[in-house]
């Protein structure tokens, strides 16, 4: 965390709860950098999160109103707060399991209603806090504590899912693309409507250890190699795209 962003942290917070090498600390930094860049007052922000590692990004760290909710229900809580008091600038920050598996129904319905929320999904492709079980976002073949022979089921394409449900703005970037990710968060905060950002964030402890990544740095390098832009993707064959992650902004236009 950069020193100049410390004013956004709750007094008394002197460390993050994340494992060494976790991408969520970088994401925390980038979210605050976007808020700082837009000069949004933390007094008007409400951060809502569910259950899981990513839910601890705002709660208790951010010096603003925070609502740490039930597993899967963050977007439903956020809807109530935003609809009753539209003056609140409501950002939901939670993980892939929380927002897209147990909370998947709320995600698509809130996108359909186009409720004015910014949702940041920290996607580490696994259930980190509970010990590394397979998620709805785990890649085919991924080794997890419940798929020791490899994951048999396809993962969600979260951006297509949320865009298809009717969101105003959808973007996917990795924490290894910090400037693009800050830009997407800033853009989403300026859009009146449902916006969704999939932030790819490595989990060395639960995903990396089981899937042959020797160090957190290897996971970051792997993300850097696999993340390509939508423009680059146009020049790749389907076979070449298999191992790639297409990043960028996605809209219905």
């Amino acid at each position, binding site marked *: 965390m950069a020193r100049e962003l410390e004013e956004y942290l*709750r007094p008394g917070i002197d460390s993050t709860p994340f494992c060494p090498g976790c991408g969520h600390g970088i994401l925390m930094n980038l979210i605050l950098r976007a808020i700082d860049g837009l000069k949004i007052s*933390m*007094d*008007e922000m*409400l951060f*809502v999160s569910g259950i899981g590692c990513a839910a601890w990004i705002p*709660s*208790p760290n951010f*010096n*603003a*109103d*925070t*609502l*740490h*909710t*039930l597993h*899967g*229900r963050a977007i*439903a*809580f*956020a*809807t*109530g*707060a*935003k*609809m*009753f*008091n539209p*003056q*609140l600038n409501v950002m939901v920050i939670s993980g892939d399991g929380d927002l897209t598996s147990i909370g998947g*129904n*709320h995600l698509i*319905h809130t996108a359909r209603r186009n409720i004015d929320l910014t949702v940041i999904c920290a996607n580490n492709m696994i259930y980190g806090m509970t010990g590394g079980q397979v998620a709805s976002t785990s890649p085919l073949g991924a080794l997890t504590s419940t798929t020791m022979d490899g994951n048999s089921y396809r993962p969600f394409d979260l951006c297509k899912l949320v865009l298809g449900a009717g969101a105003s703005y959808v973007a996917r970037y990795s924490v290894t693309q910090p400037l693009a990710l800050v830009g997407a968060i800033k853009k989403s905060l300026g859009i009146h409507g449902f916006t969704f950002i999939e932030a790819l964030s490595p989990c060395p402890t639960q995903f990396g250890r089981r899937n042959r990544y020797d160090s957190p740095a290897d996971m970051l390098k792997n993300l850097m190699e696999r993340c390509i832009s939508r423009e680059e993707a146009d020049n790749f064959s389907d076979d070449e795209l298999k191992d790639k992650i297409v990043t960028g902004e996605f809209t219905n236009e």
Partner: protein
Amino acid sequence: MGYRVIDSTFSAGHYYFSGNEAVAEGAIAAGCRYYAGYPITPSSEIMERISVRFKDVHGVFMQMEDELASICSVIGAVWAGAKAMTATSGPGFSLMQEAIGYAALTETPLVIADIQRAGPGTGQATKVASGDLMQAKWGSHGDYYIIALSPWSVQEMYDQVIDAFNLAEQYRAPVFIMGEEAIGHLRERIEVKAKVRVFDRIKKKGAPPFGTNQDDGIPPMPSFGEGEKLLVTGSTHNEIGIRKTDDPEVHSRLVSRINKKILNNRESIIQTGSYHLEDAEVIVVSYGFTARSALFAIEQLRKEGKRVGLLRLKTIWPFADEIIHDIGQKAKKIFVPEMNRGQIAGEIMKYATCEVIPYNQTNGEIIHPHQIIKEVRSIL
């Protein structure tokens, strides 16, 4: 802050309402301005009326994707400053249980009207029962306490919803209206008064929102957007909301306080109705729709010179333990007719020293006066 008297949003006078319509009007009168719900028989008329009437009072109505989202969005709206409610029936009430525990632990005031139908499972959606009373008390995991009221008329659906909002705000706890299908769909003449007594949330800038040294055990409650930098969490937390998930002392203190703030104040919360108790040898203890039949039955038996009485429980939880103990010392027998398998009879047995005779009916029908007359005659 605290109690004040305001003008009713509805013109004073007499109206012919169904019980469910009365719940909607009572909620609006009490200041409810956020409602989220999901359709379910036999409660849907509450949501339908709210969706129309909220336009007149600038309330926010949301029909959500399921009951989980309904109750969770209610909690979000409450922390944003709203008085808020939802309504449902058995299957939906089951789905809401996790969030009810969250509301209890985060001390979120809210109201749920559970218009009970015949369960378990999908059961008989259009038929009556009182089978959710233990679920109201213990449906969510862990140790917590809530307040549950039991209306017996359309008038009381209106009045008790106002009471429910006031109790929720005063004690910072979930409060349930345990209506039954028969009252939800019953139509009766009710009186709407020109003035309503409402309780407004106590606020105290900078005070810890999750702990207090006051004897009543109820901390003040700020809202989002007031600059308090609130930390609301369903994990165990200290008095300012910081998670303390491995501190035995903090957990013990929090769980103890959220129970005691209701139990220690139960004398001022509990309401009952007494009929011919003075010299009664057999006392019928009843609540909800069944208490209507019970009152008719004991009036008939009194005409025959039988020494019978009725204690009506208007409040189910906290339970009227001391009152039950007292009547059990005077009466020879207590008779408990219920549209369930004896949920309240079991509670009465804990506190009454005399014989307690349950009478249970789970066939989706109301218990008629003639059934009670026959049974009470046989034990006199």
